[in-house]
């Protein structure tokens, strides 16, 4: 656990990843900031083999019930994602996937209610390589396109089987247009609330009429599956007029088309939404909150600059994220520890900081739920209510209690690490060791001396194994459960 500490690299990895394992810290600390950003962005140069290490020694455990089936069992899907967050060598890919999962927030329960539990997991989390019908679940699509083109992501989302169930697009027909997806693609996925009218919602519903689901494949070999189909017979072919421009020349009307050509309506609308300056600013503000700072108002200069990079790059998220991670706002001293960690950020960072050997990510799932975050189960299509809303008393207790569970689980390893690190001699040595290992926001005055008092509270210092295990785990519990550790 002894670590080389470069506070800039730590900041970068807290934001562009989920904190740093000792090996990550070692790797990135040899780079300049520019090199580190470059390495994080160009993750496609790093082989994506993290899943092959599941259930291998040296990695965080998973709990396997019979078979490990992340493509059909939602618990296993959650375990796999947490495993990746801990062990992936492509941290920014995982972080962006989480960002998009929150952005296109699609919840398991509604889909399971419609299609059943195994199918719901499949359309959210299956990799096409492990599915007999080549189904690529929504979050796998988002992972694949994590730094891709936003317009392409929107097209894929509009055709995504889970989304077509979640926002009812599968039932959108010309006789009875379904407004749900049309509303949310404008309100939550692109331009933001207040940028469109009720008439736009009606028109949008008609645009996407016929964007439904088909079910090809055969049951016998497991290839039967749902996939997007453009159902020409169910498309409303009449013109659709919006309150905002659809075409570059300012034209607000999607022309009448034949039913056969009608799918172009949806492409035209998505193109317009992707190209909208409102979308550019909306995304930029969300990126600011997720990557830069949650303190005070959103920085307007940042938003304008990132929005223009978004538009100039024709919606290329890699270009946008390079600008975000190299921005002066990101590196401002006031941006350090200026975010409230999301529950998964907290849990994964704690595992990276405290240790994982002998711990199963399965045992983080209930605590995460108590902290207010269940992967693949955002509370609604607006995603999680982040920031201060994560810190209700119950959720704070859940964080403190997870710190306790993990520290207890790692008791032996922690004591061993202290001895190896030559920090067992005095309470002060032990304290210095752990304060360096678990990086927090600057401590409030007096906290460190309270911890020191704790180490001396129950008897003379002997440095015995029993004492080291008790005090190391107790102290790690207090540090990881402290308010300062919750900020990232």
């Amino acid at each position, binding site marked *: 656990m002894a670590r080389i500490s470069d506070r800039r690299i730590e900041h970068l990895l807290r934001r562009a990843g989920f904190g740093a394992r000792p090996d990550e810290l070692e790797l990135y600390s040899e780079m300049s900031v520019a090199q580190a950003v470059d390495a994080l962005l160009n993750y496609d140069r790093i082989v994506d083999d993290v899943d092959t290490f599941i259930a291998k020694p040296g990695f965080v455990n998973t709990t396997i019930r019979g078979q490990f089936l992340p493509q059909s069992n939602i618990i296993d899907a959650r375990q796999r994602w947490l495993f990746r967050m801990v062990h992936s060598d492509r941290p920014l890919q995982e972080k962006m996937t989480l960002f998009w999962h929150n952005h296109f927030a699609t919840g398991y329960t509604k889909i399971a209610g419609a299609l059943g539990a195994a199918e719901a997991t499949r359309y959210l989390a299956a990799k096409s390589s492990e599915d007999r019908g080549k189904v690529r679940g929504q979050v796998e699509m988002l992972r694949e396109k994590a730094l891709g083109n936003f317009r392409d992501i929107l097209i894929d989302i509009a055709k995504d089987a889970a989304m077509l169930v979640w926002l009812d697009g599968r039932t959108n027909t010309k006789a009875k247009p379904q*407004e749900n997806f049309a509303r949310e693609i404008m309100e939550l996925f692109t331009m933001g609330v207040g940028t469109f009218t009720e008439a736009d919602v009606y028109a949008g519903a008609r645009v996407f009429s016929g964007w439904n689901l088909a079910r090809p494949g055969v049951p016998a070999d497991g290839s039967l599956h749902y996939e997007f189909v453009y159902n020409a017979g169910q498309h409303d072919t009449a013109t659709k007029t919006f309150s905002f421009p659809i075409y570059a020349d300012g034209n607000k009307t999607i022309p009448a088309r034949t039913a056969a050509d009608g799918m172009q309506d949806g492409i035209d609308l998505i193109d317009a939404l992707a190209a909208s300056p409102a979308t550019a600013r909306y995304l930029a503000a969300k990126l600011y909150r997720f990557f830069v700072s949650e*303190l005070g108002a959103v920085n307007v200069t940042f938003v304008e600059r990132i929005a223009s990079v978004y538009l100039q790059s024709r919606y290329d998220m890699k270009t946008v994220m390079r600008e975000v991670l190299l921005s002066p706002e990101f590196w401002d001293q006031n941006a350090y520890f200026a975010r409230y960690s999301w529950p998964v950020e907290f849990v994964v960072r704690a595992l990276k900081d405290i240790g994982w050997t002998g711990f199963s990510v399965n045992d983080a799932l209930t605590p995460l739920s108590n902290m207010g975050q269940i992967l693949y189960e955002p509370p*609604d299509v607006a995603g999680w209510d982040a920031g*201060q809303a994560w810190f209700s*008393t119950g959720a704070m207790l859940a964080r403190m209690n997870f710190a*306790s569970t993990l520290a*207890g689980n790692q008791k032996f390893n922690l004591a061993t690490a202290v001895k190896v690190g030559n920090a067992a001699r005095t309470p002060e040595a032990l304290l210095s060791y752990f304060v360096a290992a678990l990086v927090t926001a600057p401590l409030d*005055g007096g906290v460190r001396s309270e911890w020191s008092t704790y180490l001396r*509270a129950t008897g003379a210092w002997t440095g015995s194994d029993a004492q080291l295990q008790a005090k190391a785990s107790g102290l790690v519990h207090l540090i990881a459960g402290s308010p300062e550790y919750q900020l990232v």
Partner: protein
Amino acid sequence: MKVTRRQFVKGGVAAFTVTFAAPEFLSDVARAQGSRTRNLVVLYLSGGNDALSMVIPYNDPFYTSRRPAIAVPAGQVLQIGTDSSRVALGLHPRLTGLKQIFDQGRLALIQRTGYDNQSRSHFLGTDIWSTADPDNPQALGWVGRYLDSLPSPVDPLIGWNTTASLPHVLQARTAVPAIASAAGYSFSSPNVGDEAAAERATALRIASHVPVDRPELAFVYGSSQAAMATLDRVASVATYRPSPAYPNTGFAQALQAVAGAISKSIGTRVFYVTTGGFDTHSAQNVNTAGGAYYNLMATLNDGLIAFYTDLKNQGLLEDTLVLSFSEFGRRISENGSQGTDHGAASVMMAMGGRVNGGLYGTAPDLNPDPKNPTLENNAGDVRYETDFRSVYAQVLEGWLATDSTKLLGGNFRKSGLEFI
């Protein structure tokens, strides 16, 4: 997006300078002598409740013609009489418990509640209902503002939110604990005995810090402090054994915790509970056993009747007012998916031992004539008749005995709305 909601409340540090004086427990003796408390339970039906399927104008011909697949047949509704516009109304067939409460005069149904230019967005809509402030939907919650208006020091258990995260309606300078389960609300330790006690004592001492000039950190300290200060009292609620038993739904279990807190007199005055799934865009199945909306009604009914009966058995019904809201009602005409899309005005419920039950306001006329004054959006949606803030005003004044004009930023009092 709710980005600006994440900004820090003004007043930062001072907001969390809470003194943890032990609350005055209301003794059984005092209660027996007639000393009463007044508890408010705010109930959020999340997703936009289809009021027309809950309080049904079953004789309106357009109810059936505009909802051919999902209308409940007139013969199956639970009739509750006619309102002042002589529209015959019936409760959803599954609301048998609410029908009993209605018949006992302890359930008020306030029809067509909403506001001008009602938002059809779940998120903006919820913000507006939570703040009672359509012009500034990022303000603190209306119930939160009430808590902030109480004389300090405010007991850290003055409010009890039964969900995992803080709902906007309770956002306040006063920290409101989130206690989803009283049994799980405890402080654990990797050690036992003296070591565990030393950890807890350290955590308690540290939590009492108030970081200066660091509102973001002070906020987390505030949560930590409120958690530590409320552990023991909440633990006492975990031992509550109600009679009758509550159903095994999250909603009913939350109500059981509320009843436990009221019964054990731990000092809490404002509770928040929610039940979700009301965003019924498709397969609404209003009147099919096991159907989506039918199940919503079952959850709502069975939870509320258990709560009502429990409190009644304990003589605590007169201390309690339940007030429900939802972000919007739904469109009048069903869509092609046998569901309904986002609409406008809805129905609010008030339930409790001192409620003057009955029907308030008038039902919409569902005639799709664009000039129909009870509808809006080309007769697509129900137009509001009673501003929802008038209902809040009645609760603030009639139940919480406080000046509503201050908390609501205007005079929303309305005569004929004396349901409490």
